[in-house]
Structures are given as structure tokens and as C-alpha cells.
């Protein structure tokens, strides 16, 4: 696999044509990837919280679900009105510290907010590995359409999304 372009917390990374995008150590955060089959571009945000605080939503749009989704569309040069051909991948949103007294359930709320925003834009989620109580790392290869999710103490989950994403795989 090519070198992975990693989205750190609150960051957005993108690639066109070829390349591997990923996140490391997602706890309650959600790796939110949008793929544009027409331009063969992908953009990935490492979303930390559901709704934006005003003070840094402009400097770090990838940090919040509500600002990350529009920022991903901008990165992919896709106006919201024509976003329905985009495909989404969601990974993360676990609650590692179960029964925490404050019970903010950030992971769950990150995922539900992202699902709602994507559904409003009629963007379909082609792969989702969310919730539960484990941390995750993942990589997505633009060229092959392979997504690979790792968690500690479990076999990695690997899925070929080339058909779902309309990626023509080069003959071996």
C-alpha cells in the first residue's frame, strides 16, 4: 500500500485518482470519508464533536460534524444540490469508557449527526463500522476501493468497495 495520508484530529485530507487516506486511534471520533466517483476524488475528515463551537469552526471545520460535511463537499468541488452521487464511509464513534458518569455519548451523537446530515444531502453510506466500545484505525485505498479497519484484539475487517463506489479495478 502507498503511504497513508492521515487525518489527525479535526483535520481534513484529500486525494485524487490514487492514494490512501486514513485515521489512527479513533475513539469517539468518526472518520468521515466522501468519495466522488465522477472525479475519482476522496476527502476525509476526522470529526471530533457533533456541533460546532463558533470560535474555531472556520479554522478547523473538520472538527465538527456540522461543519465537516460542508467542508468535505467544498474539498470535492461538489455543490450540496448535486451531492447525491457522492458515497460515504463512516468509521469510529465508539464509547471506550462505558458508564462514564457524565454520559455524554459523544461517539453515538457524532454518528447520528453525520447520518442525518448525509441523508439530508441524499448521500448514501456504502460502508459503516461504528458504535460499540472499541477504538479503530482505518485506511481507504482510492485505487482499489479497499477499506481496512483495525481494532485491538480483533482480526482486521477488510472490504472491497470498488463496485459500490463505481471504481474500475485495473486488471492485475
Amino acid at each position: 500500500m502507498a503511504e497513508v495520508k492521515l487525518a489527525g484530529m479535526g483535520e481534513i485530507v484529500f486525494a485524487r485518482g490514487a492514494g490512501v487516506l486514513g485515521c489512527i486511534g479513533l475513539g469517539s471520533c468518526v472518520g468521515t470519508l466522501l468519495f466522488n466517483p465522477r472525479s475519482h476524488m476522496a476527502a476525509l475528515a476526522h470529526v471530533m464533536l457533533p456541533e460546532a463551537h463558533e470560535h474555531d469552526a472556520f479554522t478547523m471545520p473538520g472538527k465538527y460534524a456540522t461543519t465537516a460535511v460542508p467542508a468535505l463537499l467544498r474539498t470535492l468541488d461538489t455543490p450540496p444540490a448535486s451531492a447525491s452521487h457522492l458515497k460515504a464511509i463512516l468509521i469510529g464513534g465508539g464509547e471506550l469508557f462505558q458508564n462514564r458518569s457524565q454520559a455524554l455519548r459523544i461517539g453515538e451523537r457524532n454518528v447520528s449527526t453525520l447520518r442525518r446530515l448525509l441523508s439530508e444531502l441524499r448521500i448514501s453510506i456504502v460502508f459503516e463500522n461504528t458504535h460499540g466500545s472499541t477504538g479503530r484505525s482505518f485506511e481507504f485505498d482510492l485505487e482499489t476501493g479497499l477499506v481496512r479497519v483495525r481494532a485491538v484484539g480483533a482480526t482486521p475487517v477488510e472490504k472491497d468497495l470498488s463496485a459500490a463506489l463505481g471504481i474500475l479495478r485495473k486488471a492485475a
Partner: protein
Amino acid sequence: MALTLNDLRTDALREIGNIGLGGAVTALSDLTGVLFTLEAPQVLPIDASTLPSLCCVAPESLAVGTVSRVNGDWAGEAAFLFPWESACVLWQILVQMSPSGLDALNELYQSVVNEVSNIMLGNYLRAISQMTGFTLQMEPPVFAADMAMALLSSIVVEALYEQRELLAVETAFKTAEHEFRGYFLYLPETGNLEKLFSVLGI
């Protein structure tokens, strides 16, 4: 946006870390019969770029951690993080056995780590309360074992939800007798910092 503190205030937070965790580490030494020592605490604003440098553990390596809510005059979140190998050292010392892997991590092992966190945090808070006159209460620790980075980011993100800016006082502790490193993080509610500084007269 990073929280800005002048040198004097950073030094004061570092010193509080030192005094607080000094008491906590003495308690751990008493409990285990092994001498633990502190490294110099660091005070750092938390954002996406500083998080990976917190606690020197490989991001995807297995680690064990606890989080406890602290209420009162210097409210915040207190967390302990142990790389898996270091947690095994603690288990070996305290219960003379350690789990073969994540699957074997039963309630006994969890309660050992919770108890260590309880004792250390109790002593940390006592030291701070003696110095400042603050009233501080802790809630029971919550345990998790997972990728180090996933644990750290979950701890920090919950704290970030409540506040705009976040600061961590991080202290590492070790022992010469074993290959061991433990990390303590205190994430004070930043609104409470002024209260602390005024009590200390700075």
C-alpha cells in the same frame, strides 16, 4: 486557539502537578513496596496537534486507562494511562499474575487498576487541597483498555465538549526496578484556572 499562560502560571501548574503527584506516587510506592519516581510535569494546551505528543506511547499500541470526574473548586477530568506492559507490571506486583491478553482482562484486573487510580488520585487531590484550601471530590474511576490513541482522544474529546479551550497537566512516573511507565493527566475546567491562580496569588 491555544490557551496562553505566562511562564509564572505555567510554572505554578507544573509545581502543582509535582506536589500533587508526588503524594500520589508515594502512595503507590507504599501500596506496592516498589519505589516510583516522577518526571517533570508538562503543561500544554490541548489541540489536534499536541495530542499525539501526550503520553509517549505508540498510538496504536494496547494501553489501559481510567478517567475520574473531579468536582469542586478545581473541577476537571483526571486520567491515568498505562501501556499494556506497564499495567502487567502493576498486576504482577499487586496480584502476582497478569492477563495473557485483552481477552483475559477480567474484573479483578480492572479493579486493581481502578484501585491504583483511586489511591493515587485521592492523594493528588489531598495535596492540592492542602495547598489551596480547595474542596475537591472525586467520582469513581471508569476503566477501559484499547489503542492508546483511541483512549486519549476519547478522554480529551469529552472534556473538549464542555469547554472551548483545554489544558493538560501531564506527569509521567516510573520505577528503576521494572520496565514501567505510567501517565497522569489532569484536564482542569479552564474557567477554574483563575480561581487557582488567585489563591496562589499570581
